[in-house]
């Protein structure tokens, strides 16, 4: 049994660049990583949102209408659907004046997981306890 933990820290805003989208898609690819590993091995990501990265989680994004691309909201919902732990920095939400009811969820897709709004100290703990850190 060999589990490697990774913290994906998304701190870039949505759509300005491809960066936050790639953070989501790389984390979601955890679902199939076992195909390339031995029995008992796995990589477990935790996705953390800090700074402008919290803006990726606002619901009712209109990316397809405006840009003709899949919305980052759908990546967020898919991340919850595949049971990724997603920690959102409470202080940064407060800084932007974003209330919890403005954030996405994936209940309509049948996901059990929800966004976890936590103080930055919790995100710091996640970063300190993981094997590898990846900033997006």
């Amino acid at each position, binding site marked *: 049994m*060999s589990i*490697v933990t*990774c913290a994906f820290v998304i701190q*870039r805003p949505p759509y300005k*660049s*491809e*960066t936050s989208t*790639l953070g989501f*898609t*790389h984390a979601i*690819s*955890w*679902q*199939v*990583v076992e*195909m*390339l*590993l031995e029995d008992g*091995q*796995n*990589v477990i*990501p935790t996705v953390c949102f800090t700074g402008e990265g919290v803006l990726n989680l606002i619901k009712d994004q209109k990316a397809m209408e405006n840009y003709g691309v899949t919305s980052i909201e759908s990546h967020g919902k898919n991340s919850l659907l595949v049971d990724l732990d997603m920690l959102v920095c409470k202080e940064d939400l407060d800084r932007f004046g974003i209330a919890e009811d403005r954030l996405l969820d994936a209940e309509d897709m049948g996901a059990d997981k929800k966004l976890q709004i936590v103080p930055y100290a919790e995100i710091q703990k996640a970063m300190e306890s993981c094997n*590898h*850190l*990846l*900033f*997006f």
Partner: protein
Amino acid sequence: MGTLTIGCFASLVGSKSLDFTLKLADAAADKGHKVNIWLSGNATGLGKNHQKHLKDYSTGEKPALELLKKGVEICECEACALARGILKPDAIEGIQWNAMHWYLAKIHGSDRVLHIGGE
């Protein structure tokens, strides 16, 4: 000796991050470390063959071929490459094409991971 995996998301032209990645990989390989490079986003431009080395721009084809000869594994995100019009016949021979789970699998076997995000 250890295993180093570098993920690079920055473009070859317009940023020095990918240039740095190639130089770091070369130094690590020369010291006897196993090195893996994952290219995603704009970094997939590295995998395009027939790059012309204009002196004002970074070039990646020759350094990449030298790294491959030293046993460095280089892989690029197939979807990111195709979205940029880079097709398999245009790819540098020896650079692998795969999906993002390749990167995670290499991370699993690495002593150190250096993730160089996009611009």
